[in-house]
């Protein structure tokens, strides 16, 4: 496929599908959770066994897109970018705190790295506590009470953070285009992600 020179490839097809399926699974989990625990919604929807079944299977499937996606070299490169916090990222955080205009960033800024790490950690914890609640003979009852407690509060936190994620996306059409089509405007990339390099190692090394 020929790409116009004013565009940069930000996300490959594999990466976009990992994002899309993870988002769909997570939103389904949140929606079914609301139907199980928000009383007016529960009264409206009912069908408890069906809703529980959908919730459990979408929850179990939550890490699957990422695991399958790891076969993609582009996704592995982005995982390595996201898991590395460099001086550039500390500078970005300082710039946000002092409301400075110039905010240096590689392919991903520090906020996006924190969000990605939050997502991975939250998925693992919500999945682990969910398993404890589902496989009731796996652990003593006290664990299950604790798991339910963590699951409830973390679910609420995930809902809040996800709303924040969607708000950020709504404010930046170019970032959305990157996730929708894979391509972003070169000038946007130079403005928002000046330190973005083709190879993650180089991105990290230049500001060692």
């Amino acid at each position, binding site marked *: 496929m020929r790409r116009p020179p004013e565009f940069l490839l930000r996300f490959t097809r594999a990466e976009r599908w990992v994002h899309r399926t993870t988002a769909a699974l997570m939103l389904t989990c949140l929606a079914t959770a609301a139907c199980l625990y928000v009383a007016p919604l529960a009264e409206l929807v009912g069908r408890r066994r069906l809703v529980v079944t959908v919730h459990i299977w979408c929850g179990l499937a939550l890490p699957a897109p990422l695991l399958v996606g790891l076969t993609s070299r582009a996704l592995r490169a982005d995982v390595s970018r996201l898991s*590395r916090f460099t001086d550039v990222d500390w500078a970005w955080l300082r710039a946000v705190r002092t409301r400075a205009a110039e905010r240096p960033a590689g392919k991903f800024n520090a906020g996006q790295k924190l969000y990605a790490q939050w997502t991975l950690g939250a998925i693992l914890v919500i999945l682990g506590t969910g398993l404890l609640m589902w496989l009731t003979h796996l652990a003593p009852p006290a664990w299950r009470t*604790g798991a339910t407690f*963590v699951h409830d509060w973390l679910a609420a936190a995930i809902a809040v953070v996800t709303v924040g994620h969607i708000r950020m996306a709504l404010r930046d059409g170019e970032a959305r285009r990157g996730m929708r089509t894979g391509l972003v405007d070169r000038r946007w990339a130079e403005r928002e992600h000046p330190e973005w390099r083709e190879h993650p190692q180089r991105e990290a090394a230049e500001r060692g």
Partner: protein
Amino acid sequence: MGRRVVLGLLGLGAAGVAAGPYLQRAQDTVAGKDPTGLTGLLPGGGGFRYYSVVASVPDRTPATYALTVDGLVDRPATYRLPDLQAMPQRRIVRDVQCVTGWRVPNTPFEGVPLAHLLDTAGVRPGARAVRFSCFDGEYTESLTLEQARRDDVLVALRMQDAVISHSHGGPVRLYVAPMYFYKSAKWLSGITVTDAVQPGYWEQNGYDVDAWVGRSNGRDDAPTA
């Protein structure tokens, strides 16, 4: 930073599971003293939760409600709400414990002891169990005859000292004080005396038939009766 966020969340999650029972109790204590009811909005907040296994449950008014008693009895009968209200009533105040973990302290239920209805119908020899059906068209429950005759098992007409609302299973629901709350079937419409226990709706999905609070379903809650 880097991977520390992920590891931190995992650590926090594990600590939360360990400390959860204590934190949940603390949250419930605070919620119990909260006059505004705002704590009910917190995740895992106190109070009753609405569970229904069907899409929508029809409304039954005092004019349209009917309870049938049949099966292995000498005198099958159908009762209207005023018939039930005219029978001897009993008020019980105990905690309600759901098998999913939530507990509501000191909840009054009032209604006709199930034993009275069984005696009125005349249970035949050979009967060993009671099956309950509901006007949501789907939910079922069951008790052994011995359990059904306990004096803390009611056909409840009132809850929290008021008429039972539709979302709490009104106008008439079962109340089985010593067992997990799924035994207290909402929207009760039928009582059938049978020769053997037929597992109810959730029991066909893995829950215990003898659902004593604290001694079943792998849980160790404090008994409610």
